[in-house]
């Protein structure tokens, strides 16, 4: 893994769909060699970001660089190096599976047919089957096979596990991890499954209300967040250097999920280490790092 080189870099990136923003003020850097997760509720801008990265749509404002290049319909060499799996998993329904593989082979100079056939054989997907006769999960696997067999440097996967059963999902996660390990490729995937994030991702980007609210290494994120609890002392002030991400009140007292930049030693608080899932949920609930989540029209644009 080569540190310091990013596969995806956005600066003040924004995408506007008529009257609503699909993504705004997005500034982030995803380093090379990572499995990065984009996490956020529906309409938060995950798919918008991935589609812009795949060159399917253009930013309204800001800049986006993928593998050091600006993705656009004109950057031919970038398409060779990037694999994209759309959340709708579009496939030619009238084609047979083997014809879909031929489609991939004819359109990609870096195509590896052995990878494709071995992957589908492992999943017991017959090559002679028509795509329309396959289950949703099998179609998702064929779509993913098209992506992987292209052997890209960067995989952009929009909710890859959405249509998969638990076993297939587990297989997919293993496959992705192996892909990264074997080929030093990078993966950026969007997902709602926080357990997947914890299982395979080493970088997390949390989006809420079309904005990036958290973007960092998973280890660093876990190390810099704590759950502070206190009983019957609601007015106790927090020490400086702490940012409250989410606060919960109940009959037993207060519970805060906070970002801690400094070593925290205050005996009056009970300190717990949160899981990545708890941290992400806290950010999603808060809507922004300062807890000032605003009501934003989240109507999902069809093109998003």
């Amino acid at each position, binding site marked *: 893994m080569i540190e310091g080189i990013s596969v995806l870099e956005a600066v003040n990136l924004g995408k506007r769909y008529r009257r609503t923003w699909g993504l705004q003020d997005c500034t982030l850097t995803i380093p090379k060699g990572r499995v990065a997760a984009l996490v956020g509720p529906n309409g938060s801008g995950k798919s918008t970001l991935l589609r812009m990265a795949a060159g399917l749509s253009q930013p309204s404002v800001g800049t986006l660089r993928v593998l050091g290049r600006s993705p656009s*319909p004109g950057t*031919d060499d970038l398409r060779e190096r990037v694999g994209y799996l759309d959340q*709708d998993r579009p496939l030619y329904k009238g084609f047979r599976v083997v014809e879909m593989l031929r*489609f991939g082979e*004819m359109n990609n100079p870096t195509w590896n047919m052995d990878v494709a056939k071995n992957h589908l054989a492992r999943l017991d997907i017959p090559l002679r089957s028509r795509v329309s006769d396959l289950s949703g999960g099998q179609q998702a696997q064929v779509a993913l096979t098209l992506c992987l067999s292209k052997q890209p440097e960067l995989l952009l996967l929009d909710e890859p596990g959405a249509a998969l059963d638990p076993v297939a999902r587990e297989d997919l996660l293993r496959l992705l991890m192996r892909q990264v390990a074997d080929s030093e490729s990078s993966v950026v995937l969007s997902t709602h499954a926080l357990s997947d994030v914890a299982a395979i991702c080493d970088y997390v980007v949390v989006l809420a209300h079309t904005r990036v609210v958290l973007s960092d290494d998973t280890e660093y994120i876990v190390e810099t967040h704590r759950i502070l609890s206190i009983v019957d002392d609601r007015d106790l002030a927090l020490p400086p250097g702490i940012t409250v991400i989410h606060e919960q009140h109940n009959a037993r007292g207060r519970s805060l999920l906070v970002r801690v930049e400094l070593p925290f030693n205050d005996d009056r608080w009970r300190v717990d280490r949160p899981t990545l899932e708890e941290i992400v949920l806290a950010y999603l609930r808060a809507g922004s790092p300062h807890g000032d989540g605003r009501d934003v029209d989240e109507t999902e644009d069809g093109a998003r």
Partner: protein
Amino acid sequence: MWVVWRQQRSIAAAFFLLAIVVSVWTLIMGLHEQTLWREFLSAPCKGNPGGLTASNLKDCQSLWSSVSSSGKLNEVVLGIGIAFAPLFGLILGVNAVAHEIEQKTIRLAWTQSGSRVRWLTNKYLGSVVLLVVILAPLCWLFSWWVGASHDAARITQKVFAISGFVEAACGIFCFALAVVIGLWIRRPGWSLAVAIVLFAAIFLGFTTEVLPNLGSPAVAVMQSTQLGKGSSSGFYSTGGAPANSWPLWTGFEPETEKTVPSHSLMNRLTTNMNRCQASETPSLTESFCAKQLGVTRILLYIPGNQFWTLQFLEGGFYLIAAALLAALSLFAVRKVKA
């Protein structure tokens, strides 16, 4: 190119089968028509229904009846002939782009290693090859059929579009039209509907308003019988125009004039004639007024030897328009959102 063939092959196969059925029917109709006319022309009335007399009535009437009734089936062949290529082109064009956009497979295609321009260029090349392969023999067959049943009139508006290669040019134009509309509307059904309406307007406009003005008309003095000699066509060259010509319109010109009159002169003389005939009750005869005003009734027609010139002009128009639409779509495809 294989991908284009794979995507378009069911449509191509359907139209290929339809083309075979139409071809067989057209072949049968054409041969039948040729036989009928051969018999009618060799009958005592010499293929002229105006020449029916008591002596030849028995021989000629049934033949004339057969010739007339076969015309109705000819109309069906003609309708299919005119609609076949445009429909084929439009459906291929809609399937090539609008259907892909609706099915979202465009997101798959546009994230492969090839560029969008290459993707669309392949669509054009593959589909045009399919169109030409299926339409070229059909064009030849329709041309033969027009010769067999309408040979005295292959240049006329009615059969001109299926008498040469205009048919194939229309198919290619329709493909490009459907591609551009598909990129814009993004829905196959609506794209097809809009493209059909647009093409119908362009086709009718060109055929009725533009084409008659592209030929160099000639003048013939109208014959009193209004009927020429019968031909193997079932049509007659009216009013003295030579066979295989396209009669445009009739009017008047000064007796001394031998050149093609201007529209304004023809209109002015027609008005004068009408005024003359209506000047008395009962109205005066045309021949009397023509003599009084020193004019003669003429027929403007486009000679049959301009057939290929007009074919190249109309076919060229559709092919150039198709090339412009292709250029527009190749430019626009880079801007289209997936």
